[in-house]
C-alpha cells in the first residue's frame, strides 16, 4: 500500500494545490485561508518524499499520466533538478502562505487571493515536473495568468498598469515559445523531452526552434534587456506576491531553459548562444545593481536586485559550453544560486512588505530606526542581504564560489570578475537599507510616520525563517548539491 502511494507522489505534488484552488475559489476568503494553509503544509512532505525518491533511485524516474507511454502520452519526470525546484517551491510557498494569513487578514478586497495563489503553486509544480515541451507551454501559461492576476490584485492604478505590461511581455514570450515548440514538433515529430533528446540533430529547424524558445523564455525570465516589465510588476504587487514572483515565477521559465539547453541539447547546439546568454547575464548583474543603488523606494530596490540576481543564473550557460558539464561545476553553481536566491529574495520582499505595513511607506531615506521599531524584520532583511552579497556562510556564497572556481578552472576568468563585482555592488545596495536602519530615526521622519501598530509575529517570523534558510544553505548545502545532480546524464562522468 505504501509503495502504491509512493508511485503517485509526483502526481500528488500537482494535485494537492490543484484540488485546493477551486475549493478556495468556491469557499471564499474566510475558508480559503485554512484550505491554503493545509494544502501548502501538505506539499512540504510530498516534496521531501519526492526528493528522497529521486536520491534513492539515483536516476530519472517517470510517471506516465493516463497510463499512455511517451511519445503518445505526457510524462512527469522526477530527477534531482525537478525535485530540488519542487522542494524550494514547497518551502517558500508555505512560508509565504503563513505571511499572507496576516497580510490579507480578512480583507474582502483580496477575496480571490487564495484561489489565485493555490493555482500558481499548482502550476509551478506542474511546470517543474513536466517531461513534455507542449505541456511545459501549458504550465508556463498557467504560471503567467496566475502571476498577472496577482500583480493586479490591489486594483490600484500603478498595479493595473504594471500587470498589463507584464501580461503583454508574458504573452509575447509565450508566442515565441509556442512557435519554437511547433517547429520542434514539425522537425522531429515528438514532444517528450527524452525522445527529443534522442533525435535532436544539427538541424536548421531545430536550431531555429531553440533560438525562438530562448527568446520567449528570456522575456519571461526578465533577463536584461528584456527586464523592463519586472521592476514595476514586482514592486507594485502586494508583498507576498512580489516575493513569489521574484523567488519562484522567474525561476520557472529559467528552469525550462535549463532543461532544454543542458538536458535535451547542450549550449553548443546553437553556436554563440551560450556566450550571448552569459554576456546578457553579466550586463544584467551590473545594470540591475546600479539601478538598485539609485532607487528611492525599498520595493523598487529589491526588484532591481532581482534583475541583477537573475543575471547570475545565466552565467551557467557560457561556462557549461566552454568547460563541458562537470569539469568545473558551473551547472551546480547556477542551480544552487536559483535555490538560495529564491529563499533570500522572498525573505527580502516579505521584510519589505512588513516595513511598508509598519511605516506606511517604503521610502528608503525615511527608514531610520527600523532596527528598533521592527528588529525581527530588520534581521530578516540583513540576513537575506548576506546571501545577495554572497558572503560566507550563506547559500549565495557557495553559488558564487562554485562559479568563480568554474570560471578560473576553465580559463574564462572574466566571468569571475563579474561575479565579484556583482557582490560588491550588492553590498552597496544592501548597505543603503541596513546602515540607516540601525541609525536613529531622524526627528522630522518620526512624527510623519504612521505607527501602524505591531505586526503579527508570524509575518515577521516567516520572513526571518526564509532568510535563515538561505543562510544555513551555505553550511548545510552539500545534501542539496548532491540532490540536484541526480539523474543528470553527465553527472556520472566526473573525471
Amino acid at each position, binding site marked *: 500500500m505504501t509503495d502504491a502511494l509512493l508511485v503517485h507522489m509526483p502526481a500528488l505534488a500537482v494535485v494537492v494545490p490543484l484540488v485546493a484552488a477551486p475549493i478556495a475559489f468556491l469557499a471564499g476568503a474566510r475558508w480559503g485561508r485554512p484550505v491554503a494553509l493545509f494544502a501548502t503544509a501538505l506539499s512540504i512532505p510530498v516534496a521531501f518524499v519526492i526528493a528522497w525518491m529521486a536520491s534513492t533511485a539515483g536516476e530519472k524516474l517517470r510517471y506516465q499520466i493516463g497510463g499512455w507511454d511517451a511519445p503518445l502520452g505526457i510524462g512527469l519526470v522526477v530527477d534531482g533538478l525537478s525535485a530540488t525546484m519542487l522542494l524550494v517551491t514547497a518551502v517558500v510557498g508555505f512560508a509565504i502562505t503563513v505571511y499572507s494569513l496576516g497580510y490579507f487578514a480578512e480583507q474582502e478586497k483580496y477575496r480571490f487571493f487564495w484561489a489565485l495563489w493555490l493555482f500558481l503553486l499548482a502550476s509551478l509544480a506542474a511546470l517543474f515536473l513536466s517531461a513534455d515541451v507542449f*505541456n511545459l507551454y501549458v504550465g508556463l501559461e*498557467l504560471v503567467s495568468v496566475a502571476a498577472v492576476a496577482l500583480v493586479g490584485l490591489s486594483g490600484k492604478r500603478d498595479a493595473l498598469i504594471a500587470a498589463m505590461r507584464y501580461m503583454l511581455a508574458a504573452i509575447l514570450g509565450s508566442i515565441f515559445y509556442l512557435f519554437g515548440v511547433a517547429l520542434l514538433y514539425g522537425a522531429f515529430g515528438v514532444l517528450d523531452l527524452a525522445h527529443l533528446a534522442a533525435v535532436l540533430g544539427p538541424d536548421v529547424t531545430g536550431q531555429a526552434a531553440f533560438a525562438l524558445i530562448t527568446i520567449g523564455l528570456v522575456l519571461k525570465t526578465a533577463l536584461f534587456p528584456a527586464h523592463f516589465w519586472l521592476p514595476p510588476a514586482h514592486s507594485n504587487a502586494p508583498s507576498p506576491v512580489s516575493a513569489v514572483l521574484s523567488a519562484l515565477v522567474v525561476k520557472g521559465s529559467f528552469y525550462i531553459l535549463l532543461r532544454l539547453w543542458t538536458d535535451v541539447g547542450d549550449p553548443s547546439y546553437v553556436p554563440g548562444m551560450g556566450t550571448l546568454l552569459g554576456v546578457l547575464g553579466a550586463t544584467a548583474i551590473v545594470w540591475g545593481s546600479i539601478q538598485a543603488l539609485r532607487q528611492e523606494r525599498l520595493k523598487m530596490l529589491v526588484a532591481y536586485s532581482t534583475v541583477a540576481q537573475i543575471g547570475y543564473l545565466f552565467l551557467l550557460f557560457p561556462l557549461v559550453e566552454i568547460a563541458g558539464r562537470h569539469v568545473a561545476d558551473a551547472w551546480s553553481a547556477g542551480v544552487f544560486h536559483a535555490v538560495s536566491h529564491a529563499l533570500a529574495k522572498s525573505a527580502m520582499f516579505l521584510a519589505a512588505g512588513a516595513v511598508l505595513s509598519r511605516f506606511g511607506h517604503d521610502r528608503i531615506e525615511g527608514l531610520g530606526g527600523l532596527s528598533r521599531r521592527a528588529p525581527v524584520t530588520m534581521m530578516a532583511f540583513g540576513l537575506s542581504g548576506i546571501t545577495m552579497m554572497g558572503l560566507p556562510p550563506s547559500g549565495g556564497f557557495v553559488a558564487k564560489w562554485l562559479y568563480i572556481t568554474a570560471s578560473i578552472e576553465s580559463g574564462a576568468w572574466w566571468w569571475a570578475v563579474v561575479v565579484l563585482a556583482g557582490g560588491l555592488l550588492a553590498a552597496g545596495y544592501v548597505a543603503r537599507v541596513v546602515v540607516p536602519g540601525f541609525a536613529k530615526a531622524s526627528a522630522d521622519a518620526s512624527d510623519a510616520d504612521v505607527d501602524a501598530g505591531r505586526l503579527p509575529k508570524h509575518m515577521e517570523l516567516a520572513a526571518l525563517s526564509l532568510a535563515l534558510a538561505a543562510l544555513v544553505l551555505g553550511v548545510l548545502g552539500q545534501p542539496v548539491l548532491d540532490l540536484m545532480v541526480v539523474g543528470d546524464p553527465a553527472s556520472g562522468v566526473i573525471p
Partner: protein
Amino acid sequence: MASAVPESPRGVRLAAGALCAGFGVLLVRAVLAIPEDHSGLAPVVAERLVDSGVKHPVTAVLLNFRSYDTLLEIAVLVLATIGVLSVAGSHPRVWAPVAEEADPVLSALARLLAPFMVLASGYLLWAGEHAPGGAFQAGAVLGAAGVLLALAGYARPAWVTKFGLRVVISVGFIVFLAIAVGVMFLGGVLLEYPRDYAKALVLIVETWLTVSIGAILVSLFIASASPIEELRARTGSGR
C-alpha cells in the same frame, strides 16, 4: 484615431522593419527545412485510437492521450476568469444586463434563437465523439447564446447568485479533476480511465466542460464589459 499615437522616429521604424524582415527570413528557412514526411505522432494516435473510447482522433488526443494538457488548459480558463473577476472587482454586478434599454427586435430574436443555440451546442458536444466538435466548440456556442441574451437585455437568471456563478464557472474543472484523481483509487495512475468506462467518462467530462466553458465565456464578456466606468473612476483617483 491614428494621430493619437505618437509616431516613432524614422530610424526606429527602419530598424524594427529590418529586424522583422531578418526574423521572417530565418523563419522561412526553418520552416522550409522541415522534412516532407511530417506525420509526427499521427500514426501512433491512429494505432491506439481503439483504446481511447472515442472514434475521433482529435477528441482522443484531447480527452484521453493528452488529457492532462486539457485538464491544465481548463485550469487556465478558470484561472483567467478568476483573474478578471478579481480585477473587475465587481462581483455582484457580473451578469447584470449589459444593455439597459433593450431593442425589442433584438430581444425577440435572441429569445427565439437561444433554444436553438443550446440545441446546437448539445449536438456539437455529442458529435465530438466521432467527428470534429466537442466541449470547446459546444461551450463556445453556449457562451455565444449567453452573450446574445445579455446584449438583448435579459438579466441574469435568478439562480445565478454569487456562489452559483462560481460553481458554474468551476464545475467542469472540478468534475474533470475529480475523475482524474478518482481513477487512481481504482488502481490506475492519474487520468488513467479504465478501458470499458473510457467513453462514458470522456462524455461526462465533456458535458460538464461545455457548461463551464459557456459560463466562463459569458462571464469574461460581461465582467469585462460592465464595470469599465467604475474601473476608470477607480484608476483615475487611484494612488
